[in-house]
């Protein structure tokens, strides 16, 4: 057990999880008019990105952006208020969930359209080059969006113009309700990146501390060499459930694409899966369970206090 790790980072993982579970409770109660994509299971990469971002680094997100907005904003209330379309919401009720950005915290653009954000990220990186900023542009994408032409086009553009871009591929295997194997042939992303002369690394396991170390190294590499980098991370979007189907004992699996997670409930210890697919579970590698449970209890109390009667 690596006891020298920063407990603040573990607290962030737990805060993101509990915040999402609270939002899910309200979602289940039909409290929102807008569609929301919950990102339970995606906390490790979001916290790691938040930790490694430099002052001038920019972040560009997708429709499933709750984890990054929670990580960067540090509070749930402005996000929740945006979901409620209140004027004092994070984006003054102008963006809702799927386009939610936070310019003050360097989330400068978020797109609800698959693959749309990659060209914009390339433009942001070109802007950084013109301004001679020693900063990188981080863009979130996924295994679905990488099927769009813009994934190839934007990487080509970043490489051709020596742009400092970090493309985070959150590979959760699913695009809405079809798995990769159900919709396309496999893509060897390593070879794809290599063909363009772009850096590539793949990680799995949801160990936020490992992600941070790797991403710090990658960020330095991008800044030094002015070449884009693809960082693929295997993720399981947690909260899926089974519905009864005649003749199928296990039932039919419902992947949690959008909408409330009907079978997921909020608990003081917010672990969903007892495996490395769950970033909260993985924290047990680094800290005593009692320490984590005490932290979770305090965080839940603080979040509830923050949102008050919301």
């Amino acid at each position, binding site marked *: 057990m690596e006891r020298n790790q920063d407990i603040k980072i573990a607290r962030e993982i737990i805060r993101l999880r509990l915040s999402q579970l609270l939002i899910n409770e309200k979602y289940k109660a039909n409290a929102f008019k807008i569609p929301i994509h919950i990102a339970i299971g995606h906390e490790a990469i979001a916290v790691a990105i938040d930790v490694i971002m430099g002052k001038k680094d920019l972040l560009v997100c997708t429709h499933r952006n709750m984890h990054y907005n929670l990580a960067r904003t540090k509070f749930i209330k402005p996000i929740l208020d945006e979901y409620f379309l209140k004027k004092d919401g994070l984006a003054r009720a102008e963006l809702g969930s799927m386009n939610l950005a936070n310019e003050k915290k360097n989330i*400068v*653009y*978020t797109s609800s359209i698959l693959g749309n954000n990659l*060209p914009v990220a*390339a433009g942001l*990186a070109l802007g*950084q080059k*013109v*301004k001679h900023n020693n900063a990188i542009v981080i863009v979130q994408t996924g295994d679905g969006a990488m099927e769009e032409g813009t994934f190839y086009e934007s990487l080509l*553009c970043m490489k051709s113009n020596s742009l400092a871009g970090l493309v985070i591929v959150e590979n959760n295997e699913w695009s809405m309700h079809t798995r990769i194997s159900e919709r396309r042939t496999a893509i060897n992303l390593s070879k794809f990146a290599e063909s363009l002369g772009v850096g590539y690394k793949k990680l799995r396991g949801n160990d936020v501390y490992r992600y941070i170390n790797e991403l710090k190294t990658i960020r330095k590499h991008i800044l030094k060499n002015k070449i884009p980098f693809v960082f693929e991370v295997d993720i399981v979007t947690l909260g899926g459930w089974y519905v009864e189907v005649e003749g199928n004992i296990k039932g039919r699996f419902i992947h949690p694409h959008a909408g409330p997670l009907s079978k997921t409930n909020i608990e003081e210890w917010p672990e969903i899966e007892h495996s490395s697919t769950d970033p909260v579970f993985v924290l047990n590698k680094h800290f005593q369970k009692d320490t984590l449970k005490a932290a979770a209890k305090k965080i839940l109390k603080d979040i509830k206090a923050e949102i008050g009667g919301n």
Partner: protein
Amino acid sequence: MKYIQRVNELIVGRTSATENLVLFGQNIAAGSCLSGLTRNLKVGKGGLIINTQNSENTLAGLGFGMMLDGVSSVFFMKQLDFLLLGIDQLTHTYNFIRRNRPNASYTIVCIVSDLGYHGLQSSFNNFGDLCSIARIQGFTITNAVDAEAIINTHLVAPGFRIIGVSQRLFGKELPEVKEVYSNTEKTLFQYTEGDGATIACFNLSFPYGLELHSKLKERKIESSLFSVNSVTPINWDKLIVNAKKTKKLVVLDDSKSENLSYDNFLADVADECDLKSIIVVKRKFDDARWLYPNADELPVDYGAIVSKISS
């Protein structure tokens, strides 16, 4: 001077005087430089000229990304229909950005493929269609007067817009025209003032309107010649007042799509004017030949129009 020489001269004049400006597009500084549109491009201090890859969706988004970063840019593209690949950026991304009234400038300059004999791709010649989808500010350039006004006012200015140039006019000598009136936004221009008829030209049909004006003049009929250079909501008042005065209105539109820019104008005319005569010159699609390589000119029966006006 030829149309393309003047447009190019104005573009280079504006871009070379602007610092930290990024000019990008395919072959903008290579080969024919988009048939002369981007010849001898220059940028001011800190600027860049980039010959890009062939990726219109990404290139359309590239300018918006720079805009978010506070960096101004101009994207030159060979053909209007190539921009169809970037429509998602023109709607979704632009809608995100326009909320905050950006200080940076982003302009897309594209060539409308109306030269003739280009076949299938030239069915898309209605510049307004592209602007309409997200109420994008857009301007067509049809002569020396509007070229100077639009390029000097809008090529580099806070916000986003599209400027369309006509490939059909590239090699043509610029006609002698003088401005009688133009609005502040440079979306409506008047070139002549007369009591005999009101001529309103839409899309890139100004040359046809100018020809009609000359034919009427030969018959001693003085007409008021207007060009509507934009589809974003504009104030028609000047045109409406003129039509009320002449009581004879000729509308010309060389667009090929179903929704035509003059539809809104005619709705207002119907609402506000009691005219003796309204003549609409538009394309007819009696058979499939409009899809095939053809001369692409808007057929205008000048004789019939002049007869009707004179009667």
